[in-house]
């Protein structure tokens, strides 16, 4: 199910402002890639371009190409809606739909697209997705309760289950643990480790311990100053980035000398 992502010379603009410049990298299937860097360096913006979610922001646009198994996301006639069905996303703050029950939240991707699904099939998908998100045992008795009745960490795993249920190839995570307590964070990190066998995962994080714990490869983004575009500084195996980086700025950042 998982696929290789190739990014070639990608620029991201907000109206006329160049936010991210010249990013090229390749993400292998069934890996976890962490994007780290100081605030405002464009790592979240870059993440959003991987499933065209940046288009939600007025004025945002992209030059360059993103290939998923050779298909250019920014090719002519590409439907962003279809892109997003292949590349799922989990956000910084857990955002279950408040009008839906836990079960319906998991099926949201199916139901919101007006697709019919037999009840037994739906129940199977709910169970499978919730098991995939390590949430099944905690919520199996209250699938008809509203999603907002769960704790923050559970809500975030519900959102992951919701993303899994669409059966994407890639899952993007935008600081998925920044609104959670350490215990919930640990649960999510364990989950990411397990999900790696099925999905290609790209995660943005501010927490460098987290990046070193969960990821195989790490990309370090930085900006020269406010108003300047963010750039990809270094991209390598996580162990290399954290023990033996080639660029001075990376070493300064991961060792805590700035940022």
């Amino acid at each position, binding site marked *: 199910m998982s696929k290789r992502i190739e990014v070639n010379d990608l620029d991201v603009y907000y109206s006329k402002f160049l936010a991210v410049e010249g990013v090229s990298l390749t993400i292998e299937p069934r890996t976890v890639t962490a994007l780290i860097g100081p605030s405002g360096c464009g790592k979240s913006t870059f993440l959003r371009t991987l499933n065209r979610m940046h288009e939600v922001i007025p004025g945002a646009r992209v*030059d360059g190409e993103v290939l998923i198994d050779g298909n250019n996301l*920014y090719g002519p006639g590409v*439907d962003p809606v279809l892109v997003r069905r292949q590349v799922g996303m989990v956000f910084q703050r857990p955002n279950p739909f408040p009008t839906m029950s836990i079960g319906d939240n998991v099926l949201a991707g199916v139901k919101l697209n007006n697709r019919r699904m037999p009840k037994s099939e739906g129940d199977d998908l709910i169970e499978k997705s919730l098991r995939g998100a390590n949430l099944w045992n905690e919520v199996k008795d209250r699938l008809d309760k509203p999603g907002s009745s769960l704790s923050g960490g559970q809500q975030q795993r519900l959102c992951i289950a919701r993303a899994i249920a669409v059966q994407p190839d890639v899952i993007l995570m935008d600081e998925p643990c920044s609104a959670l307590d350490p215990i919930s964070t640990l649960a999510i990190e364990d989950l990411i480790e397990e999900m790696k066998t099925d999905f290609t995962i790209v995660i943005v994080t501010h927490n460098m311990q987290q990046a070193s714990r969960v990821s195989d490869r790490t990309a370090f983004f930085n900006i020269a100053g406010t108003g300047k575009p963010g750039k990809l500084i270094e991209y390598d195996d996580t162990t290399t980035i954290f023990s033996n980086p080639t660029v001075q700025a990376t070493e300064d950042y991961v060792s805590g000398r700035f940022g």
Partner: protein
Amino acid sequence: MTTAVDRIAIKAKERPGDRIFSTATLVAGGLILGVLAAVAAFLLIQSIPAFVAEPDDFKGDFTNFWSYVAPLAFGTLWSAFLALLMAIPVAIGIALFISHYAPRKLAAGLGYIIDLLAAVPSVVFGLWGIGVLAPMLQPFYANLVEWFGWFPLFAGPVSGTGRTIFTVAIVLAVMVLPIITAICREIFLQTPVLYEEASLALGATRWEMITMAVLPFGRAGIISAAMLGLGRALGETMAVAMVLSPSPQILFQLLTSQNPTTIAANIALNFPEAHGVGVNILLATGLMLFVITLIVNMIARLIINRRKAFSGAN
């Protein structure tokens, strides 16, 4: 170059559902502009005969349309002005009471009580004005004329029924009170707590805090609230039509039985029996009212919008 082509190509790929839905919303939005234009257009078309009407066409002793509409326009502005004069200080007081004086827990409930005033239909205000307020105020008016008759506004002879323009102004004041209060309250509540705490920390009393932080912050808001209240008072029909005993003249006296009436009330009273050019004349006065309220409202909205841009609230 090529990217521009790409982007156009991407845009071209739109789902039919999206296309239909976004077009529907756009049509609805455009329809609103259309309705506003239609209101102006149809009133204008139907008003043309009135502008060239002969003196015989007017009810009463008038030579042309402008001499007919002048006392009505005066009455409209004069009654609305008096109403605002009473309503604004009270409304600011209530808004301050709710936002800064009443206990926090009660504030929302007290605001709701004032909002109830806005929910009362104007025809009920009319009944109340003529059935309760006017008879209650009449003895008070008699005393006022007796003691202060030397003051031009209070000159006699006093009205025997209390159905004077002053009573109308009181009813109008009560009617616009909730509108002005609601906006002022919102604006006072938006005062940045930092400013308030800064002045309190300097040892200011609550009133000094309000004059230092709340009122300067809310000045534009108060002005526009007053303008919106003015718009409502100018257009109010039934309460005026029912309470006032009218006479089509320009008179400043507040307490006599000779009172200038308003455009709206004049239309309501005369429309059911009007015929021929008379209908067009009434429509033309309606057009004048529309123009007056449109200008007032546009000024109010411009003030609000300019303030919004500077407050950084959005």
